[in-house]
């Protein structure tokens, strides 16, 4: 018989789910290990910023770097696969820092013994297609094979570097800024969930996984300097992304539920399994704070791009309730809490 040990002594799934538990683990373990005193040398945006990537000043420009490991069950899902996901995740993290021209990517693959070669090749082909869309190239890589049962199928890590003259962080929101989201919410997470938990649903759900560096470039150039903060609402969804942005900037965010772009079938899944689309992952979206005067031109810039047609203004930064994200439902108001970890269908 197996024994239980106290929860705090073990890493649980919630520690990787993008919510509060994960943030606490990073703060308590990783920051303690890697952040040295003095905390932040000039010209470096490092780990302690807990942003989508890091940036190092080189002359009058910034070198942005980021890394991301990808595991997903199932590895092939409607709208994408782990290969496409691994390219988009890193390209998008670079873009969230304002760096939209990718200098290069790395690709490190760990495969389980017995994994079908045809699946591996399909995954790599999909990475090549995604790289083409992002105008990025894999420049170096690494391959490891582990014994049967030692890992689950395949794990892919990618890292990326890019240069930018102006870094956008996730902490720059000011009172009065408008919040814009670049498209429909919850598509990726709901598409993956529909294949899990034996839900046996017949749902036309498709992941939104896509590289959005081109889209972000369009927004940044529509009105230079007008985007005050940016983040991609991946794990933990829009709720976690906005929660983090509000808390770092110490402003409140007020959202209008009727303005949130959500596909009807995502809404349907949400009603059926009792999960709010706001806490569900997106893999081809960004949420940004925009100076009020620039809203029209940035929205127009986004909507002119094929990946930004559903872009919408969804809310505003306020001086009320610093650190909180509040949703106006049309019936009243509620607080949008940070996600609690692993998303599970509920029955009550």
């Amino acid at each position: 018989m197996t024994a239980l040990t106290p929860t705090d002594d073990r890493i649980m799934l919630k520690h990787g789910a993008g919510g509060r538990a994960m943030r606490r683990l990073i703060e308590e373990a990783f920051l303690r290990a890697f952040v040295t005193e003095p905390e932040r040398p000039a010209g470096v945006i490092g780990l302690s910023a807990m942003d989508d990537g890091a940036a190092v000043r080189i002359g009058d420009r910034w070198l942005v770097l980021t890394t991301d490991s990808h595991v997903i069950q199932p590895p092939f899902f409607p709208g994408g696969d782990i290969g496409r996901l691994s390219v988009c995740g890193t390209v998008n993290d670079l873009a969230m820092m304002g760096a939209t021209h990718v200098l290069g990517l790395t690709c490190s693959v760990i495969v389980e013994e017995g994994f079908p070669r045809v699946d591996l090749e399909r995954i790599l082909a999909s990475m090549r297609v995604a790289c083409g869309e992002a105008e990025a190239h894999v420049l170096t890589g690494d391959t490891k094979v582990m014994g049967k049962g030692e890992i689950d199928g395949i794990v892919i890590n990618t890292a990326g570097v890019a240069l930018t003259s102006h870094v956008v962080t996730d902490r720059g929101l000011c009172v009065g800024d408008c919040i814009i989201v670049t498209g429909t919410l919850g598509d990726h997470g709901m598409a993956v969930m529909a294949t899990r938990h034996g839900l046996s649903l017949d749902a036309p759900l498709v992941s939104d996984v896509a590289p959005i560096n081109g889209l972000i470039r369009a927004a940044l150039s529509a009105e230079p300097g007008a985007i005050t903060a940016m983040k991609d609402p991946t794990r933990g969804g829009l709720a976690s992304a906005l929660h983090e942005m509000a808390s770092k900037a110490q402003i409140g965010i007020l959202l209008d539920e009727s303005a949130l772009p959500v596909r009807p079938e995502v809404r349907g899944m949400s009603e059926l399994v009792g999960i709010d689309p706001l806490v569900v992952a997106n893999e081809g979206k960004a949420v940004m704070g925009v100076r009020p005067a620039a809203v029209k031109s940035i929205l127009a810039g986004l909507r002119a791009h094929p990946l930004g047609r559903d872009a919408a203004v969804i809310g505003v930064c306020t001086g009320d309730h610093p650190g909180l994200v509040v949703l106006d439902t049309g019936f009243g108001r509620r607080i949008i809490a940070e996600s609690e970890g692993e998303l599970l269908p509920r029955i009550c």
Partner: protein
Amino acid sequence: MCLGVPGLVIEVEDLVATVDFWGVRKRISLDLVDEPVRAGDYVLNHVGFAIRRIPPEDARATLELYEQLLKDNAGNESEDLMAADVRSEMHAANGADR
């Protein structure tokens, strides 16, 4: 408790119905309902089981009950009704914008 979701019955095969929930389809057991269910009916689904057939006229009856409740308690606060009008107008404009 009990997450119950109404959906539209698309097809019935013995005691299993294919039910549409906002474009998402799921097969639902009819073992628990107490009257025959046909395509075009609504059912209330809980954990993959229909627990009630909802005739469309019953949904209408519920709405009428609410109207009656408002009528019975009608005050003379025209100011509020006006605010509601303005709100719905703004809402329509917001929708038309997209």
